[in-house]
């Protein structure tokens, strides 16, 4: 066996080994985690954070708590903004569907904006009233 053919054999073995490892990575134990699992992890951990944070809220501020949670849940506005920006791409969707999506998005945008501005402002108004004894 000459030197060249030995190199060829080693290279072939190398390629095979790499293929085997990458096959292994894509099956079973080394499988890629579904993004859903990351979202679920964030969700569950955020529930725990919420649990501890909310229990530390003083009962005197329960009404502002509701108006603040109301305002921040309007972060759903990100979905509304994406819908309004929906573009017609030929072949991917009907033009009428895009029109519907934009319309829904526009109304969602108005509703969420009412909530964001109204919610934060009314919270501010309430919180400004709480005064200590002078």
């Amino acid at each position, binding site marked *: 066996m000459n030197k060249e053919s030995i190199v060829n054999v080693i290279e072939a073995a190398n390629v095979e080994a790499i293929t085997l490892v990458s096959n292994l990575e894509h099956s079973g134990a080394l499988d890629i985690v579904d993004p859903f699992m990351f979202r679920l992890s964030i969700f569950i951990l955020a529930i725990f954070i919420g649990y501890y944070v909310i229990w530390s809220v003083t009962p*005197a501020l329960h*009404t502002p*708590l509701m108006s603040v949670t109301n305002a921040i849940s*309007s972060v*759903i506005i990100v979905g509304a903004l994406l819908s309004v920006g929906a573009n017609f791409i030929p072949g991917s969707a009907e033009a009428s569907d895009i029109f519907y999506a934009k319309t829904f998005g526009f109304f*969602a945008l108005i*509703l969420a*904006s009412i909530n964001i501005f109204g919610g934060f402002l009314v919270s501010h108004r*309430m919180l400004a009233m*709480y005064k200590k004894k002078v």
Partner: protein
Amino acid sequence: MSANIVAFLYLVSGVCFILALRGLSNPESARLGNIFGISGMAIAVLTTLTISATTNILDGILIISGITIGGGVGIYIARKIPMTAMPQLVAAFHSLVGLAAVLVAAAALYAPAAMGIGSPGNMHTSSLVEMGLGVTIGAITFTGSIVAFTKLQGLVSGSPLTFPKQHLINLLIGISLVLMIIAFSLTESHFIFWALTFTALLIGVLIIIPIGGADMPVVISMLNSYSGWAAAGIGFTLGNTALIITGALVGSSGAILSYIMCKGMNRSFFNVILGGFGSDSNSISSDTDENRPVKRGSAEDAAFIMKNAGSVIIVPGYGMAVAQAQHALREMVDELKKAGVSVSYAIHPVAGRMPGHMNVLLAEAQVPYDEVYELEDINSQFSQTDVTFVIGANDVTNPAAKTDPQSPIYGMPILDVERSGTVLFIKRSMASGYAGVQNELFFRDNTMMLFGDAKKMVENIVKSL
């Protein structure tokens, strides 16, 4: 912007919201917390605008006009709304979050490519399940909040509305919702999506109508929780971290508030949700009590008694909110303090129509928050107090909750007002409270009833002081 930076900014926005809620642990830090909340929202909106990368002028006009219209309406409402109307305002705001969730889910169904979740007819089953859940909870939040709003605003009667086979019908509709979510996630059918939405809108009405006015603190908290879960559902569909975090925070916030409210009434969550409480009027006892003697007093009597007392505790209830008596009450307390009387306020967890309702009204009347105490902090003080002044509260002072196992309110934590030297009750009439039970306290020797409108009565007391 790279996808990683975008994801990071949404995370920052979520953290700002956590800090906004964390601030509410005390009134001083709460104001800073609100600024964190606003910053989080600004970050989320700006980040989204950069990735949607819309070069279309029309889209830009739509976005600016949508935010301007909504923002204008929101600012107008928030500036004009009186503090006594806060429960209905919060209910109305919840309904908007619910409807926005429905609309965003619909938009995602029609144009999934815009949200980066696949192409029409070819979406992930998991996205569809999340979308189905989000739209269902959103629709329930929407109509449920509208019913709660109409009850709180007095557009419809606050009394529970019940009809035969109510729970069976609700159960069947609930099961059909589950089946429709499954069918929708398997087929991605637009028809099933809308059927699901309308059924959820219907059940939202049906589950709130049997719940009476004074149970509204639980209902509002529950709808608060639902609006959070709806947002989280949409967050899963869109794969948006800020929405998922916020949804989880708001969802658990509402759930905890519901729990606190239920505990304040010693009733289980299901007992409240199944509704009908206080509708079967327990008029048996009140008929016989009609002629029992009570000690009536005038504003002058009340003024004299309180001026000569060493300490007074004030117990406000929903009646104070209805009569808008909080400002007159603060004036009365100012006069008493000038006369050297020590005054504090005692708040029952379920006083009013939403969690913390009384605290906001007292804060509006410029009562310092460190004079206002929660039930467990002040209950031991009543025995060392000369006079308790109950204004617009009833059931939360009823000793039957401790002594009478037959009473519908038995086991509910109450303010021990009967332990104080004298109890003054402002009431419009001898009518029983929400629970439909007579309050034994009215007939005691150390109780004086002040009949009349709470605001006028307090104003007369101020004049006499």
